[in-house]
């Protein structure tokens, strides 16, 4: 015995205190006691008094933790194991196992108000326990009472309150699930009553509402007897065993529908239950609706036919336009559940099918988006369940409607899950019903994977399905009436493209019905439909034109006069109604540009009609202002429509341009090219580039020089106009391709020997565009466009007359490309490299005068044309550096390499510098070739002196070369030109420079230069001494560090006896102290190292001393901002 009576008394009162104190317990202190208690049960169960005491004690302890059951967690396993061992042991006397269960019951009850999974387990455990025949009598009523009290008392405003309520509800639901109906039926009304009083449906907690519906459903099931509705629709005999046992081959019983006259005892409460469930179907959360739908299905199965029919009736009422999307979804789920259970009798189908088909297309606009994907998905579920539920002959009369609706959903739904669901439902129907027209063929094409890609379903699968006449018109009509008016612009455009592809399947229908139908909508008041219709009319007309072309007809053979007139008037009406303004204008503009382009392509008979003038104005307007809108396609569409318009309406039969037009268009465009607005400059440059040949003929020189002018960098707004320059280069290339090459032609008509040089010069100049702005090296766009231009121009010229490509041009082209293919931006390098190889291997005919062609071809074998990944620096640099051995390209290549070797990206620097070092090693100290290399380095440095883009990387590269001992060969001869020159260039570079990056980079170079004995070393050291007292503390510190390292690396620079002192000074001085404190130390260092002390120039000294203190701080601040600390 564990506790005696007096102890219990004490603890009992203590227990009250603890409960009163609430959640102040922080551990389960009585763990051992409880364990003892459980163990003792075995010994005491016969003693009535001891048992009572033990149970009492157990209750008190567990009750204490009612608020904090998580404290029990660590011990729960152990308790349950003990209890279960007792209960399971078959030798245990009934009284003992009863006791064990009692403890378990107490334990689980306290777990109902936690919020994790253990609550579910507790609920399950309790429900199983309480429905045991031996327990239910004495415990069940008390427990239900407890539940109802907790339920009513629970405060639904607080989290713990909701958790408790949810625990209780789920226990009750499970209880009514597991319990026998007869035992529970008497309690059901009161539970239902209390539950309704709670009005859980209004709470915001989804879980609670779901538990509520679940419990109501179970209560409902308790009210009515479990039975299989005799009236339900049954589809044949389904039991495998029965079927196999049949001796003779008799056809299966088909759909037995019998009326049951049995006694149905339907309590009143069932009405309340069904009401609640129907409300649950409309809930805003899916889980609740789903639970309600299952409830409706289950309960309806137990009702007499008459009542069941009323349920179906009520479910159908959910499908009204005044109901929310949630109600539609719930309704679909309920229909599917009913159908699956055979509770939707075939007689109801004529009513149900139209509703389901409506739901398959459900899409409710909500501002700029819409809802309804879940409804459509659920409607697919209904179709899927119908396929399983009914015999083919029952569905036969609805097959066409369902098949069409499912196909439309499979092909044209916006959401991938709906397309897949529809496709699955279609498959189920094909497999089980076998009556869907061409089901198998369609299914093979529109399978689960194929419908994943929307563009594919719209443009290809729809065409495949439309070949079957059962579906053609339905597909077209759906697009025309629904999808062209879709809220999503992407869908509208896709739909119009789909209509283009579908036109060949029904040209007459399109021309005679669809086009006249759509014309009014193109200028109607609904913006979406207007946009969709204009797009669609453009696409359909063009498709009709293509069909006509194949049959030697014209588009006028399809379209009647009024349609042609109607199409013409669309733009006129829009212009008059000012439909291109504002936000709606932004949507309409790309559509109208496309429309103009397509109608021009389709050769509609509007020649010499004033409408073409309007079109020209509209296109010009969009070219000019297109960029003001976020939509890039406005300008694109306008630009691509322009050549079509010119080709069709500005050309005379003799191929020449109609008089008057050319001047008007070209002079307008050329003057706009000088605009101050970058966007209109861009637009009109591209517009000039897109003009067809006959429009430019006779004015080529003028147009060309206008464009070339536009590629030049104007110093005032270099950064601003970079995109305009890019587009001018692009346009120039376009124009070149349109005009063609003839070496003896007239420069006003064609590229010839008189103007080709100026074209090349324009491209070469554009290759030097290194404009920087906040976006980085934006000049790269111009350079890339220029490289493309060089390729196009060169290959085109070579085809016409290889002699036009002089050695000078060819050399320059290759130098440009090689330089770019060693530079740092991966994308630009790829672009350059690919063009380089394509030109190298161009053989139609080969480009003449390529210098070092053989060497280049050895470095880059033909296979590199396809395989070399120029973007990867690890692949590119080992190859391109080998070209350093070609004298012609050495300079350009080194220029490009410098930027990469001295760059910032780790992998880029690593691979480019390693490749360069490998190349230099391969020269194996050949004095002559090293000298030429050194010459080139000096040349580049001289050329780009003070040009930071190159000179800073140059300093970094020199550091790498020096530290790797690449120039060791020159150390033997005193006063070699290279170190002298480098020193001179470096000093010049940092002269008057306040750029910390540059200064820091130069420190490394000076430290590297001290290997060269004699005057170079002396001068470098004195420069470093100057740096030791530089105004930037960071420079002083870095110099000290680097010098320290260098002195350790190279011997014999300082007298070995003094070396230790020098090193100590270098390492132990606080170099960021004020300059005036450091100067004596530095001077001491100079003495030790036998360097002349730097003398402050008289002029500057005076100035410096005056401003020193503030200068100190100012310079430091300056440095901080520059380095970005």
């Amino acid at each position: 015995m564990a506790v005696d009576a007096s102890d219990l008394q004490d603890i009992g009162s203590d227990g009250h205190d603890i409960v009163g104190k609430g959640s102040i317990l922080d551990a389960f202190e009585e763990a051992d006691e409880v364990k003892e208690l459980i163990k003792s049960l075995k010994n005491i169960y016969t003693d009535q008094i001891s048992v009572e005491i033990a149970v009492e004690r157990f209750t008190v302890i567990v009750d204490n933790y009612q608020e904090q059951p998580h404290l029990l967690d660590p011990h729960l396993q152990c308790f349950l194991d003990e209890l279960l061992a007792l209960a399971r042991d078959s030798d245990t006397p009934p009284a003992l196992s009863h006791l064990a269960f009692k403890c378990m019951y107490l334990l689980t009850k306290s777990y109902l108000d936690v919020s994790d999974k253990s609550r579910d387990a507790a609920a399950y455990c309790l429900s199983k326990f309480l429905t045991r025949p031996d327990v239910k009598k004495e415990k069940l009523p008390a427990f239900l009472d407890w539940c109802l009290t907790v339920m009513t008392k629970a405060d639904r405003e607080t989290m713990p309150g909701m958790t408790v309520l949810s625990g209780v509800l789920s226990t009750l639901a499970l209880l009514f699930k597991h319990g026998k109906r007869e035992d529970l039926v008497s309690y059901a009304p009161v539970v239902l009553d209390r539950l309704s009083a709670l009005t859980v449906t209004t709470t915001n907690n989804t879980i609670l509402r779901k538990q509520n519906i679940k419990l109501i459903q179970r209560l409902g099931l308790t009210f009515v007897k479990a039975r299989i509705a005799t009236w339900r629709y049954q589809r044949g005999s389904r039991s495998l065993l029965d079927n196999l046992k049949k001796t003779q081959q008799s056809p299966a019983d088909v759909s037995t529908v019998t009326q049951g006259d049995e006694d149905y005892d339907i309590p009143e409460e069932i009405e309340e239950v069904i009401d609640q469930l129907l409300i649950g179907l409309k809930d805003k959360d899916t889980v609740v609706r789903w639970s309600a739908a299952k409830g409706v299905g289950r309960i309806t199965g137990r009702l007499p036919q008459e009542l069941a029919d009323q349920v179906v009736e009520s479910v159908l009422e959910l499908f009204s336009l005044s109901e929310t999307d949630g109600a539609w979804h719930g309704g679909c789920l309920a229909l599917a559940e009913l159908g699956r259970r055979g509770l939707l009798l075939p007689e109801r189908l004529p009513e149900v099918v139209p509703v389901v088909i409506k739901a398959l297309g459900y899409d409710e606009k909500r501002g700029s988006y819409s809802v309804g994907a879940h409804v459509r998905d659920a409607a697919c579920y209904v179709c899927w369940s119908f396929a399983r539920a009914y015999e083919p002959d029952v569905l036969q009369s609805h097959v066409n409607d369902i098949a069409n609706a499912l196909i439309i959903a499979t092909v044209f739904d916006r959401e991938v899950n709906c397309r897949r669901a529809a496709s699955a439902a279609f498959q189920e129907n094909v497999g089980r019903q076998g009556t869907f027209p061409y089901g198998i063929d369609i299914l093979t094409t529109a399978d689960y994977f194929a419908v994943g890609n929307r563009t594919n379903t719209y443009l290809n699968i729809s065409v495949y399905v439309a070949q079957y006449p059962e579906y053609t018109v339905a597909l077209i009509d759906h697009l025309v009436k629904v999808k062209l008016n879709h809220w999503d612009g992407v869908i509208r455009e896709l739909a119009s493209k789909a209509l283009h592809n579908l036109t060949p399947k029904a040209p007459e229908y399109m021309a005679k019905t669809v086009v006249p139908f759509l014309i009014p909508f193109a200028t109607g008041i609904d913006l979406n439909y207007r946009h969709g219709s204009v797009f669609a009319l453009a696409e359909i007309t063009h498709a009709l034109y293509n069909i006509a072309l194949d049959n030697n007809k014209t588009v006028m053979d399809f379209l009647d006069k009024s349609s042609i007139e109607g199409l013409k008037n669309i733009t006129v009406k829009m212009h008059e109604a000012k439909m291109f303004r504002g936000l709606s204008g932004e949507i309409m503009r790309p559509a109208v540009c496309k429309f103009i382009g397509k109608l021009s392509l389709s050769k509609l008979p509007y020649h010499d009609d004033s409408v073409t003038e309007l079109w020209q104005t509209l296109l010009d307007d969009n070219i000019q202002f297109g960029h003001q809108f976020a939509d890039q396609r406005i300008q694109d569409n306008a630009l691509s429509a322009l050549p079509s318009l010119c080709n069709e309406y500005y050309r005379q039969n003799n191929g020449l341009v109609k008089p008057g037009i050319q001047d008007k268009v070209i002079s307008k465009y050329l003057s706009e090219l000088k605009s101050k607005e970058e966007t209109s400059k861009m637009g009109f440059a591209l517009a000039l580039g897109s003009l067809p040949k006959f429009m430019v003929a006779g004015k080529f020189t003028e147009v060309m020089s206008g464009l070339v002018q536009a590629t030049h960098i104007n110093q005032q707004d270099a950064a601003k106009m970079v995109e305009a320059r890019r587009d001018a280069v692009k346009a120039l290339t376009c124009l070149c391709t349109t005009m063609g090459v003839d070496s003896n032609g007239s420069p006003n008509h064609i590229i010839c020997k008189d103007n080709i040089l100026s074209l090349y010069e324009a491209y070469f100049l554009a290759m030097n565009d290194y404009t920087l702005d906040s976006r980085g090296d934006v000049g790269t766009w111009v350079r890339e466009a220029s490289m493309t231009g060089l390729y196009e121009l060169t290959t085109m010229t070579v085809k016409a007359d290889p002699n036009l490509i002089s050695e000078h041009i060819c050399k320059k082209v290759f130098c440009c490309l090689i330089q770019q293919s060693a530079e740092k931006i991966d994308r630009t390098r790829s672009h350059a490299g690919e063009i380089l190889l394509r030109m190298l291997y161009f053989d139609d005919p080969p480009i003449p005068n390529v210098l070092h062609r053989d060497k280049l071809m050895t470095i880059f074998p033909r296979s590199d044309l396809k395989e070399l990944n120029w973007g990867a620096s690890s692949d590119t640099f080992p190859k391109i550096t080998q070209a350093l051995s070609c004298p012609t390209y050495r300079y350009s290549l080194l220029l490009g390499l410098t930027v990469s070797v001295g760059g910032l990206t780790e992998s880029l620097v690593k691979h480019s510098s390693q490749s360069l070092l490998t190349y230099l090693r391969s020269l194996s100290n050949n004095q002559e070739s090293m000298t030429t290399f050194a010459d080139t380095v000096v040349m580049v440095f001289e050329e780009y002196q003070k040009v930071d883009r190159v000179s800073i990387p140059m300093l970094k590269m020199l550091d790498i070369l020096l530290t790797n001992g690449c120039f060791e060969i020159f150390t033997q001869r005193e006063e070699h030109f290279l170190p002298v020159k480098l020193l001179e260039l470096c000093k010049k570079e940092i002269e008057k420079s306040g750029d910390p990056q540059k200064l820091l980079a130069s420190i490394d170079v000076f430290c590297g230069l001290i290997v060269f004995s004699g005057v170079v070393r002396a001068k470098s050291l004195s420069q470093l001494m100057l740096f030791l007292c530089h105004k930037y503390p960071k420079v002083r510190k870095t110099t000290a560090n680097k010098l320290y390292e260098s002195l350790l690396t190279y011997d014999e620079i300082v007298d070995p006896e003094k070396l230790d002192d020098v090193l100590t000074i270098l390492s132990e001085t606080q170099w960021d102290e004020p300059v005036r404190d450091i100067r004596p130390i530095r001077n001491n260092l100079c003495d030790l190292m036998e360097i002349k002390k730097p003398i402050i120039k008289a002029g500057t000294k005076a100035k410096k001393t005056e401003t020193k203190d503030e200068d100190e701080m100012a310079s430091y601040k300056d440095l901080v901002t520059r380095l970005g600390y």
Partner: protein
Amino acid sequence: MGLLTILKKMKQKEKEVRLLMLGLDNAGKTTILKKFNGEDIDTISPTLGFNIKTLEHRGFKLNVWDVGGQKSLRSYWRNYFESTDGLIWVVDSADKRRLQDCKQELHSLLLEERLAGATLLVFANKQDLPGSLPSEEIRQALELDEIKSHHWMICGCSAVTGDNLLLGIDWIIDDIASRIFTMD
């Protein structure tokens, strides 16, 4: 909650099993299915496409897919939400000439990713015909012992008389159930 989730849930709750019945043409797949379904087996023509039948057996819901044996129809069973739990490979035991074909088809089928893990039941059908090979010989001819990737069993049967059909189905259900359904 989309159709996909509903189907998944339903499958677990109602113990649905998806069986795919495949084999060369004229092996007797449709006959077996009709026999299962208690339909008349006197008039059967080559299956173009597929049939799906749902049967109840021992508390399981069997969705049996009978897919035409022609090569062109292979794409059906590759698709769709419900993955295949069991494969019933039907062999015409009397068609000795095509056993080699049959073996190749079966082995290439088992490489299909979507059939990974599916239980394989081989029905050596048409045992009632004189001259048909016993299942032991079919087993060797099809090199069934080579199959390590799937649980399998071979079972001689006759769709016409119904012999052994139940035995095979019982085995495949047991095997599948032990794999996919957990105790409630």
